[in-house]
């Protein structure tokens, strides 16, 4: 045939700038270092995860044991670095142990909400039709309800065990994620590679899960961080309102509830758990901000 082959053969083009980027997931972790908020946030989270994991080793006292002698002076001292609460329990130990339920419940709820919300959002956005109508309207209904009231009603009715809290958080967060995923799906389904997949005869499930979902990763991960932070706040609030995890196990919100009334005299009892919960949420929110920045730069 006509034109000489050499004119057309492409040499392997250098993979350009991407070669400089480290490959794989280690590379992704390393990219976190590019963004200050992401680094700080990840560090904060890591600290708390380590604290929670090593709670038995780190806490100087058992969380529920009362040191009656310390009641004479509950403010921070050599024996109790953060002081004790009104029942003589060491605040530092309670804070350390209190990290555990929080760091288990919040991520679990987020994973549940993400799984459920993604499936609903994908189905609604890809299939359209009556599925879309039902899902969207249900989400609107759940979202238009002030969730605190929902929690109050449900938890007082069914009781507030850890699983109930996970369940109720999942149900109320799933619609938000469904909406986000639906929006992304609506956009991504118009892409040509989706049409190409259809022309190969791929099933709807394959297209939704393999073609569309991986490309929704970015915004979804950022949202998951934000959700986790928000869930931690809610767990704290539930504890504070008295509908969180049952006593006497340490629950940061519950600790504040028990002691904020005595703030005029012993402010430290409420301040330290407040600082604990704030720092953990700040970690997740900063991480989310950083991830968003990194995502935009790519």
């Amino acid at each position: 045939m006509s034109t000489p082959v050499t004119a057309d053969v492409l040499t392997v083009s250098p993979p350009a700038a991407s070669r400089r980027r480290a490959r794989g997931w280690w590379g992704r972790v390393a990219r976190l270092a590019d963004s200050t908020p992401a680094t700080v946030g990840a560090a904060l989270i890591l600290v708390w995860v380590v604290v929670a994991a090593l709670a038995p080793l780190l806490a100087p006292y058992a969380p529920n044991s009362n040191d009656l002698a310390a009641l004479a002076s509950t403010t921070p001292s050599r024996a109790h670095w953060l002081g004790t609460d009104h029942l003589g329990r060491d605040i530092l130990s309670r804070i350390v142990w209190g990290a555990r339920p929080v760091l288990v419940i919040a991520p679990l709820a987020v994973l549940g909400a993400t799984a459920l919300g993604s499936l609903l959002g994908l189905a609604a956005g890809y299939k359209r039709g009556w599925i879309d109508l039902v899902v969207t309207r249900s989400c609107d209904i759940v979202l238009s309800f002030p969730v605190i009231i929902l929690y109050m009603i449900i938890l007082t009715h069914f009781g507030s065990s850890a699983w109930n809290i996970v369940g109720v958080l999942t149900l109320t967060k799933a619609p938000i994620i469904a909406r986000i995923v639906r929006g992304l799906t609506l956009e991504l389904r118009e892409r040509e590679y989706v049409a190409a997949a259809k022309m190969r005869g791929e099933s709807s499930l394959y297209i939704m899960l393999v073609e569309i979902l991986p490309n929704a990763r970015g915004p979804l991960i950022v949202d998951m961080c934000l959700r986790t932070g928000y869930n931690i706040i809610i767990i704290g609030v539930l504890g504070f309102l008295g509908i969180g995890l049952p006593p006497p196990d340490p629950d940061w919100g519950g600790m504040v509830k028990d002691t904020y009334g005595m703030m005029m005299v012993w402010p430290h009892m409420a301040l330290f758990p407040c600082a604990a919960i704030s720092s953990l949420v700040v970690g997740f929110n900063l991480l989310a901000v950083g991830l968003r920045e990194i995502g935009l730069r790519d």
Partner: protein
Amino acid sequence: MARFAAKHLVFLLLTLFVVSFLVFALNEFSPGDVARKELGAYATQDQVDALTKRLRLDRPLLVRYAEYLGKAATGDLGYSARFKAPVKAVIWKHLANTALLAAIAFACIVPFSMVLGILAGMRESSRLDRAILLFSTLMASIPEFALGVFLASVFVVWLGWLPGTATLVAGGGWSLSAQLVLPVAVIVLFDAGYVISMIRASMVEVMQRPYIRTAVLKGLPFYRVILGHAVRNAMINPITVILLQINYLVAGVVVVETVFAYPGFGRMMLEAALFKDIALIEAGALVAVGLAVLTNILGDVAYMILDPRIRA
């Protein structure tokens, strides 16, 4: 336009029905529970059954729901066991208190977050932007009760400038306005954290658009580019979010109300839930969700006004 209104009205009614039914069903599913809650934990089974029969609670759920709706439509929402008063009066009183708080807070949040959000977004990654971003992230990360504790420890415990509670009882020596300062401050700071980040994000996106480049290259001074071109486009999306904050301000502020002992709607709902005051729970849920859908509709209307592309 009329179709739009009709569609939303249908949605409002549908949501009201669904939610109130769910709440009703949750509370009154088993007839025995209602009677038991009335009588308390120590009543015998016979007493419970007798009351059940007397209150005709053994009829099917849907019938009871219909009856409830009928009564609600005429304004009879029942009697509150917790507050020992008609539900309507209880709700009104607490709603009015909350409305006061919400109005002041909203009036502060909107301009505060708009100004900061626009200042942050108009020059992304400037020092001002990083500062505002840090501020808003921080504020949105500290739970309301923690914020209340922090502010109280400074202004109440340490400085003594403000009261630690806001029971709206004039007797304690603090004026009404002094009592409101801390609750409003906590609400504004917490909520603004979130709203500022929304507005900032929208502003950053708008500033990347080609029409901003056109405006700049027309030689317009920067303030005109921002005020004349960027802001109106940037506010289209956040408006809905801002209006939805009203929902939060009415019910979500239960935490702030608890911290400062403010007799508001959220706190009322909490007590109702803890006390199992069924009539109050149902009526309160109805009010809350009605308000939620109304703000949704308001948001859509505002969207239509701001964006001429939707009007077509």
